[in-house]
C-alpha cells in the first residue's frame, strides 16, 4: 500500500458522489444496529466507515462489506449525523470498481455488471438476460437451483426471454460517450 496514496483516502472518498458525509460520522453504531444484513458484512457498516477514516484503503476497497448493502436506507433515515451511509457505501463500491478491486466472497459486483450490461445493450433491463449473464459468469450450475423460481415466473408470463430495445438506443450511446469525453477533459 503506497503511503502517499493511502494518506488521502478519506479525501478521495469525500470527493466521490455520495461519499461527502464520511467526515461527519461519530461512530455511534446506529447504522450497524439498523442494518438487516449487518450479520453477513465482513466488517459492519460503522466499522467500514471507521476503517475509511483510519486510511485503510486496501482493506476497505478489497472488502465484500459494502457489497452486502441492500439499499434499504434504514441507516440513512436514522443516522444522527446525516452521513447518508447508504450513498457512502455505494460510493465505496464505485471506487473499488474504478480501481479494479475484486472482492472475495461476494458475486454482487458480477450481478451489477450484468445488470448495467443489459441496460447498455437495449436501454432497458431484461431480467432474464441479466440473470443468464450472471450465472454464466459465476456458476452455471447454481442456475439449477433457480429452476423452480424461473418456472414460476415463466409459466405466469412474468419472464419474457427476449429483450425490448428502445428507439433512442443510439441517443443513449451518444449521451454516455459525450459524458466520458467531458469527464476525460476535466
Amino acid at each position: 500500500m503506497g503511503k502517499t496514496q493511502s494518506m488521502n483516502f478519506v479525501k478521495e472518498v469525500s470527493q466521490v458522489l455520495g461519499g461527502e458525509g464520511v467526515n461527519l460520522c461519530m461512530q455511534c453504531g446506529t447504522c450497524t444496529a439498523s442494518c438487516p444484513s449487518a450479520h453477513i458484512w465482513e466488517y459492519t457498516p460503522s466499522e467500514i466507515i471507521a476503517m475509511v477514516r483510519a486510511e485503510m484503503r486496501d482493506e476497505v476497497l478489497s472488502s465484500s462489506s459494502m457489497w452486502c448493502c441492500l439499499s434499504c436506507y434504514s441507516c440513512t433515515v436514522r443516522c444522527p449525523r446525516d452521513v447518508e451511509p447508504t450513498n457512502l457505501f455505494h460510493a465505496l463500491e464505485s471506487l473499488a470498481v474504478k480501481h479494479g478491486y475484486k472482492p472475495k466472497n461476494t458475486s454482487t459486483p458480477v450481478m451489477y455488471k450484468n445488470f448495467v450490461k443489459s441496460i447498455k445493450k437495449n436501454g432497458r433491463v431484461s431480467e432474464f438476460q441479466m440473470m443468464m449473464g450472471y450465472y454464466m459468469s459465476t456458476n452455471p450450475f447454481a442456475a439449477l437451483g433457480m429452476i423452480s423460481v424461473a418456472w414460476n415466473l415463466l409459466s405466469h408470463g412474468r419472464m419474457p426471454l427476449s429483450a425490448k430495445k428502445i428507439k433512442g438506443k443510439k441517443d443513449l450511446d451518444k449521451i454516455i460517450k459525450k459524458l466520458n469525453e467531458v469527464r476525460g477533459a476535466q
Partner: protein
Amino acid sequence: MKSYTYFPGCSSEATAVGLDISTRAIAEVLGMELKELEDWNCCGSTPYGSLDETESIVIAARNLALAEKTGLDLVTPCSSCFVTLNKARIHMMEKPQLKEKVNAALSAANLEYKGTVKVRLLIEALMSDITTKQISGKVKKPLKGLKVAPYTGCQEVRPRFGFDHPENPVALDDIVTAVGADVVPYPSKCKCCGGSAVIAEEGLTLELMYRLLDDAAKNGAECIVTPCPLCQMNLDAYQGKVNAKYNTKFNLPVLFVTQLIGVAVGLKADQLGLKKNIVSPNKVLAKYL
C-alpha cells in the same frame, strides 16, 4: 380528470407485469390519465449507481429531460425508479456543476434538463390527488372481512422524499381500509425483503422473507398487499423456497395494492393481471370477484 406522465419501469414488462396492468386499469376508473413516457429507458436502479454514479445520473436524466417536455408530473408505481430518479434530480439540484456536466452529455441527443419536473410515486398521487375518500366512493365490492398485512417495504418511504413516515408508514393502511378490508397489525411493514440481492445473496434474502411471511401469518393475515414490484416478486416467487428452507407451509397470496383496489372497484381478474400471481389469490378473493 388529472393527467400524468407515466413511467412504468423495466419490471413492468416482466416480473411485475401485474402491477402495470392493474395500475392502468384502476387509473381509468379513478380518473387519472396516465400517458406513458415516450421511449423511456431504464432508470439505472441501484446497480448502475454502485458502479458509476455519474453515468447513472446521466441515464436517469434522459428520462427526466424527456418527461419535462410534457409539462406534467412524472408518476411511477416502482419504488426503485422513484428513488433513483429523485436521487438524480436532487444531486443535480444541489450540485450545479454536475448538472452542467449532465446537460453537456444530454446535448449529444439534443436534450436539456432544466430541473422543473416533479417525480412522484403512484401511491402518493393516489393519496394526495385522488384521496381515499374518492377511492371509497368508487368501491362496488367492499372487501369486508378480508384480513390484509400492509407491506410498504423500503424505497417507497426511505430515504425521505417527503411522503409518509419512513419507519411507520400509514398510507397503505389507509388505502386498505378505504376499500373495506381489515388491516392486521404488521410490525414488519417497512422491513427489507432483500430486493435484488435475492440473486447473489439468496440465503440472506430467504431469511428476511421468512420473517416477513411469518409476521403476516402470525397476525392472522390472509394475504399481503404491497405497492412495490420487487417486494411482490420476492415474496410471491420465492415463497416456495422459503417453505422448503424453513419447513413452513406459508400460502399467502401477495397482491399489488393496485390489484386490491381494482377488485374493490369491481374490475375482473383478467383486467388486474391476477392470473400472473404465483401464489394463487383465487380462494381469498373468491367472495369479491
